[in-house]
């Protein structure tokens, strides 16, 4: 039997799915977290059934891509669990009535039932069952209340015989609500007051700025704390002795020990030695992972509290200057952690134009945490000047490229039109699960590319393969960008991992101005192989090639201009 979970966006379908199947799906407090669908299995009295988490939809007459997928999936289902938002019965029942009209057998889960009671909404479930003549079960997916009852109810699912005039749907709903819903007026709660203040421009924009600054400072504080007090001591006290013993064993094999340990004479430098077991592991685990961890923890708090859609509304006017609307801020923010989830999140956007602009700007001007972590280390040692120039340049480039694309890319950018969820207190398990999934994913993606990158670097230098390319590219590098020709290798390996590329800049012993130019060019010229492959899927190969061309041209232009300007100062 195929069981479908159907309901409005952001009513907790994915949380119920997690409960029923044990399969982890990322859930957040904003509409459209699951644009794709997930399948899992659950067993009811010994029999295995397939459960499909259908993307949220408000209607069975699709108005966007996610809703089209939902309607398409409906054909596959034998029975449906209609997840109803108890805090918002009117809108949920609209979908329920459409299921009834199509004679689809379903049971209704009135989710967020406890939250509804807290806000003063009381629902007579028995009466609702009587009217619709289907099973209705109050649930609270987060705590698991009602879930086992829901599973048991799936053994006997019927088609509702409730009859109504489809043209008069909203009136019908109104009449049902009058009979079953009782609203007690409550005084404004703290969360409601916050809801108003955080979206009015006068108070909302200062709040946004304070949150962004706090976010930035706490990410640096937490990550640097982890590096200093956990990862460095661990590497030094546990890993270094192991490496010492290993290298003693491999003393006679010069090639292998160079590959594994890199330049490892008397003192081991994890950042610059460039061996598979030294730099290859230290950069992703020792430096980048602490940043990825603290970034995604803080972002998860923002996601689950419901703050992100408010950021989208407040940023809407700004984002329009680049031809995209406020919702594009979500891929951009995710991209600050790692560009890959950012690229995947471009799915929440509707038109080709929006997707193209968002993906291109994401690749050009949104440095991922891996790159940022290395830049903090490299440029941070010179104080804030270098970092400030790099980030300001990227912001300016974001606006200029965005504005050019807005006027040149064909197609339309629709306007923002979305539900803003209520604030909810993030729950610990939800946060840890999401952070854990993203970290697991980071490790799985980053470490193989990193090791391959280190290997490739060693091969390229050992056989002097770069020599030819360096010669060809040297006029561009030396004259336009003011960088030594050896930086060619850095950019080639930056295709694989940008953190690795920054690590390769260290032994070149560049001046601050050169480091700034190199960092900016490195950020702009190409996303990274992992992001690139995701974007090919999302945009198609033709659009992606166009996008890459824009990136390369932008990188050369910006690098050249920056080099000139910095030399004048």
């Amino acid at each position, binding site marked *: 039997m195929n069981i479908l979970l159907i309901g409005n966006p952001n009513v907790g379908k994915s949380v119920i799915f997690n409960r029923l199947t044990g399969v982890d799906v990322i859930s957040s407090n904003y509409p459209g977290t699951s644009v794709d669908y997930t399948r899992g299995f659950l067993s009811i009295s010994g029999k295995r059934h397939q459960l499909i988490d259908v993307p949220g939809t*408000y*209607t069975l*007459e699709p*108005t966007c891509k996610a809703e089209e997928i939902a309607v398409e999936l409906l054909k596959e289902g034998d029975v449906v669990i209609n997840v109803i938002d108890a*805090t*918002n019965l*009117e*809108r949920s029942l*609209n979908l329920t009535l459409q299921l009834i009209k199509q004679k689809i057998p379903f049971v209704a889960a009135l989710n967020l039932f406890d939250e509804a009671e807290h*806000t003063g*909404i009381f629902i007579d479930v028995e009466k609702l069952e009587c009217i619709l003549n289907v099973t209705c079960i109050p649930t609270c997916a987060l705590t698991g209340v009602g879930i086992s009852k829901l599973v048991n109810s799936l053994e006997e699912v019927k088609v509702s015989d409730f009859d109504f005039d489809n043209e008069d749907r*909203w009136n019908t709903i109104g009449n049902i609500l009058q009979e079953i819903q009782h609203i007690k007026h409550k005084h404004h709660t703290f969360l409601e007051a916050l*809801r*108003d203040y955080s*979206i*009015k*421009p006068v108070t*909302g924009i200062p709040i946004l700025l304070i949150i962004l600054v706090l976010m930035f400072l706490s990410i640096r504080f937490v990550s640097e704390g982890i590096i200093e007090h956990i990862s460095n001591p661990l590497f030094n006290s546990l890993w270094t002795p192991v490496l010492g013993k290993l290298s003693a064993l491999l003393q006679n094999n010069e090639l292998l020990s160079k590959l594994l340990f890199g330049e490892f004479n008397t003192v081991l430098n994890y950042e610059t030695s460039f061996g598979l077991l030294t730099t290859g592991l230290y950069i992703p685990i020792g430096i980048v992972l602490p940043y990825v961890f603290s970034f995604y923890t803080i972002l998860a708090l923002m996601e689950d509290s419901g703050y992100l*859609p408010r950021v*989208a*509304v*407040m940023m*809407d*006017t700004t984002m*329009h200057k680049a031809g995209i*609307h*406020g919702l594009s801020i979500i891929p951009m923010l995710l991209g600050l952690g790692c560009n890959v989830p950012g690229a995947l999140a471009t799915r929440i956007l509707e038109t080709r134009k929006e997707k193209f602009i968002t993906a291109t700007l994401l690749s050009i001007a949104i440095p991922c945490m891996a790159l940022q972590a290395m830049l903090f280390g490299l440029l941070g040692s010179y104080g804030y000047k270098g970092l400030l120039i790099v980030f300001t340049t990227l912001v300016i480039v974001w606006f200029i490229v965005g504005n050019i694309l807005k006027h040149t890319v064909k197609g339309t950018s*629709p*306007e*923002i*039109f*979305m*539900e*803003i*969820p*209520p604030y909810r207190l993030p729950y610990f398990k939800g946060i840890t699960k999401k952070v854990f999934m993203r970290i697991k994913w980071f490790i799985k993606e980053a470490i193989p590319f990193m090791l391959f990158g280190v290997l490739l670097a060693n091969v390229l230098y050992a056989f002097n393969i770069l020599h030819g390319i360096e010669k060809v590219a040297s006029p561009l590098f030396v004259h336009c960008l003011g960088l030594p020709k050896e930086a060619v290798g850095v950019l080639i390996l930056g295709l694989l991992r940008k953190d690795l590329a920054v690590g390769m800049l260290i032994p070149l012993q560049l001046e601050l101005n050169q480091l700034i130019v190199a960092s900016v060019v490195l950020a702009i010229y190409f996303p990274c192989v992992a992001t690139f492959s995701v974007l090919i899927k999302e945009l198609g190969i033709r659009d992606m090639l166009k996008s890459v061309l824009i990136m390369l041209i932008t990188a050369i232009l910006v690098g050249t201009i920056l080099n000139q300007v910095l030399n004048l100062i």
Partner: protein
Amino acid sequence: MTKILSEMQRAEKGIIKQIRGGKELLARMDSLSLYIGKEIELVSKQSKRGPVVVKLGNTQVAIGSGIAQKIIVDVK
């Protein structure tokens, strides 16, 4: 008194009277329970051309300025 949604003031309440749009817009509005006869309250307005946020029942919806210009509201 009737007003265009984008010209409503903060905290003003009203009932949606008319939606000047094609079938597609009507369907999208309908799916978010913004239908003719629905009571709404303006929560906030961003800049001049920015989106408006309206409260309907227990939820809030952000509406881009272009769409907000197509909605006529009977203001109380």
